[in-house]
């Protein structure tokens, strides 16, 4: 089978009563959705899209919250042969006008044929469309989910069954102004290639049960914890990220109740679950069904995995179930996977050599634990269809391979790469070097395994979510008393949380302490409302504190080092 729709049709015909998804929602009983119900729900959306004259190959933006409509709308667009893109829903802390701007930007980049949303959200969508200033004849059609009813599928009429493997099947965006410009366009073939090799690496079978709280607008949620189980006939238990973050015990309860075997978590979630789960919410919970908890989508830490094991080991969680993965949307999902056939390799390396010489030198000898050793978790071997190189940039713009254990930029090549950033050939071209995708991640190779050590680009990853510092800096500069070019944002690791947190350093001209506090608060509020990112610290400083490069740009990493040095000094 070459397309998603062919797979759905087959399941509809051969196993309509098999449960594909169990939908969990706060305050209501869990809702099992069979393949029959899934295809009928999706067919209703496909027919509604066809009636709205949405043609195969056109983009459909889905703006719905966790629930059956989101699932049906996504697969409905697929059945119609259209290209779904899930846009995060407006949250209570994000300012509506900022959300509107993001949506307008998304409309302008992707030229969607349709948007699917709630009736009560229509005013927002109309305002965004007005500011996207698309020509009237190009304006996307708006579908309201309450108008759509499940329908019997007429497979011959469905556009999705006339697509080919090379056609684009979905778009996936990172959040924020910068991320929304990079819609990762994936073909049916790329996704199938990924699923074939990734499923094999995981030994995935229809006996597995995947439990997830991850949002579907993120690759780990969309691919590993949504598309893969549905296309591979693995039952998925899906809860809302908003419910999980308020009650992390729900994840453990669901694993216990449904016999979950696999779950994917960003690193921070290990700390979050370990620290913020109430003991009495774990009564009767048993986790011995879990065969892999996959740590993925932000830097992985041994300490986070250990904290998780310490908290949940007595509930039956096995140490061997703790696994790691290195993944990115541009490769559909997984590049590597560790911990399935053998425990995850822990590489103890000399800290100074890693940070200064950029070489991962194993700590050996004496047999005693060295305090300056860094415990690097392996991300595992590349999937058989993915090749990984570690490259060093040369002054002439070319790249060369680095020897084993030398830290450089990770580049990948596979048969499951993105088709391109949608409508942005310029960005696509910049991302590749001689056919190799430059990930922007730093790492090294040792004994065939990949270790990720950091990032070359100054992207911040908070709780698995990619955040571009320039977006936050632009927002902060809009606050009265703050000037563009005099503010810098960067990530600082919080060991207790197991993830990075965002710090902003801001130069101001006023010296009055109360006024400075007021500006700091205003920045905090404006940035959060504008980006959905909470700031850990807004550090207000005098003029000329910030370090600039020769071109006048702020040097984020240098300023981060200066900030950390000052904090360390203040603490003593």
């Amino acid at each position, binding site marked *: 089978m070459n397309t998603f729709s062919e797979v759905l049709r087959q399941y509809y015909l051969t196993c309509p009563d098999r449960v594909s998804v169990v939908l969990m929602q706060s*305050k209501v009983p869990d809702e099992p959705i069979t393949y029959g119900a899934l295809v009928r729900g999706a067919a209703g959306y496909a027919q509604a899209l066809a009636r709205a004259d949405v043609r195969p190959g056109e983009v459909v933006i889905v703006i719905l919250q966790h629930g059956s409509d989101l699932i049906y709308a996504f697969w409905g667009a697929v059945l119609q042969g259209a290209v779904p893109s899930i846009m995060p829903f407006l949250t*209570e*802390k994000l300012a509506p006008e900022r959300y509107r701007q993001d949506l307008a930007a998304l409309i302008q980049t992707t030229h969607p044929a349709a948007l699917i949303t709630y009736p009560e959200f229509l005013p927002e969508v109309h305002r965004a469309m007005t500011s996207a200033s698309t020509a009237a004849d190009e304006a996307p059609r708006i579908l309201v989910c309450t108008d759509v009813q499940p329908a019997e599928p007429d497979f011959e009429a469905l556009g999705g069954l006339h697509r080919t493997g090379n056609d684009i099947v979905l778009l996936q965006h990172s959040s924020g102004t910068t991320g929304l410009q990079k819609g990762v366009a994936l073909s049916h073939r790329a996704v199938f290639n990924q699923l074939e090799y990734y499923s094999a690496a995981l030994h995935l079978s229809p006996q597995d049960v995947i439990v997830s709280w991850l949002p579907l607008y993120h690759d780990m949620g969309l691919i590993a914890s949504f598309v893969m189980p549905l296309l591979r006939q693995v039952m998925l238990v899906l809860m809302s990220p908003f419910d999980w*973050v*308020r009650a992390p015990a729900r994840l453990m309860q669901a694993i216990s109740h449904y016999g979950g075997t696999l779950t994917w978590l960003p690193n921070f979630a290990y700390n979050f679950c370990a620290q913020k789960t*109430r003991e009495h919410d774990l009564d009767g919970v048993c986790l011995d069904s879990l065969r892999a908890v996959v740590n993925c989508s932000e830097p992985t830490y041994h300490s986070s995995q250990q904290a998780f094991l310490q908290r949940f080991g007595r509930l039956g969680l096995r140490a061997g179930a703790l696994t790691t993965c290195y993944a990115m949307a541009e490769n559909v999902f997984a590049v590597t996977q560790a911990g399935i056939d053998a425990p995850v390799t822990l590489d103890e390396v000399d800290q100074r050599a890693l940070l200064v010489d950029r070489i991962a030198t194993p700590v050996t000898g004496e047999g005693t634990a060295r305090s300056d050793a860094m415990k690097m978790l392996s991300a595992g071997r590349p999937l058989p269809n993915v090749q990984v190189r570690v490259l060093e940039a040369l002054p002439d713009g070319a790249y060369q391979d680095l020897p084993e254990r030398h830290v450089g930029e990770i580049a990948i090549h596979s048969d499951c790469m993105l088709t391109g950033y949608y409508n942005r050939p310029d960005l696509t071209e910049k991302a590749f070097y001689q056919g190799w995708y430059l990930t922007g991640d730093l790492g090294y190779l040792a004994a065939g395994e990949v270790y990720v050590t950091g990032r070359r680009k100054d992207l911040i990853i908070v709780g698995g979510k990619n955040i571009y510092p320039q977006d936050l800096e632009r927002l902060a500069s809009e606050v009265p008393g703050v000037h563009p070019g005099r503010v810098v944002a960067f990530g600082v690791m919080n060991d207790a949380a197991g993830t990075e947190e965002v710090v902003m350093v801001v130069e101001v001209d006023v010296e009055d302490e109360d006024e400075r506090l007021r500006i700091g608060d205003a920045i905090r509020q404006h940035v*959060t409302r504008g980006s959905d990112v909470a700031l850990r610290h807004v550090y207000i400083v005098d003029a000329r504190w910030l370090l600039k490069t020769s071109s006048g740009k702020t040097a984020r990493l240098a300023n981060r080092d200066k900030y950390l040095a000052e904090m360390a000094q203040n603490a003593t």
Partner: protein
Amino acid sequence: MTTDITSSLAQYIAAQILQQPKRKIASDAPLISSGLIDSFHLVDLSLFVEKQFGVLLDDSELNKDTFDTLAQLAQLIRERQS
């Protein structure tokens, strides 16, 4: 009584959540809708309330419609204590 609850909550939020121990938080200042407390810290706040005041906040109550200010949260705690 409510003042004690308010000041204890204010201290916790300033020191533990915002990590600005000297910061003053007005009892009518919006906490959730303003983004001061993000969703990742709401569960911390509910664990603190449970431990400190013996009052259980259901996870479905951790939103700005149930409480958005110190005064509203203190009021909720007091109602449940009595």
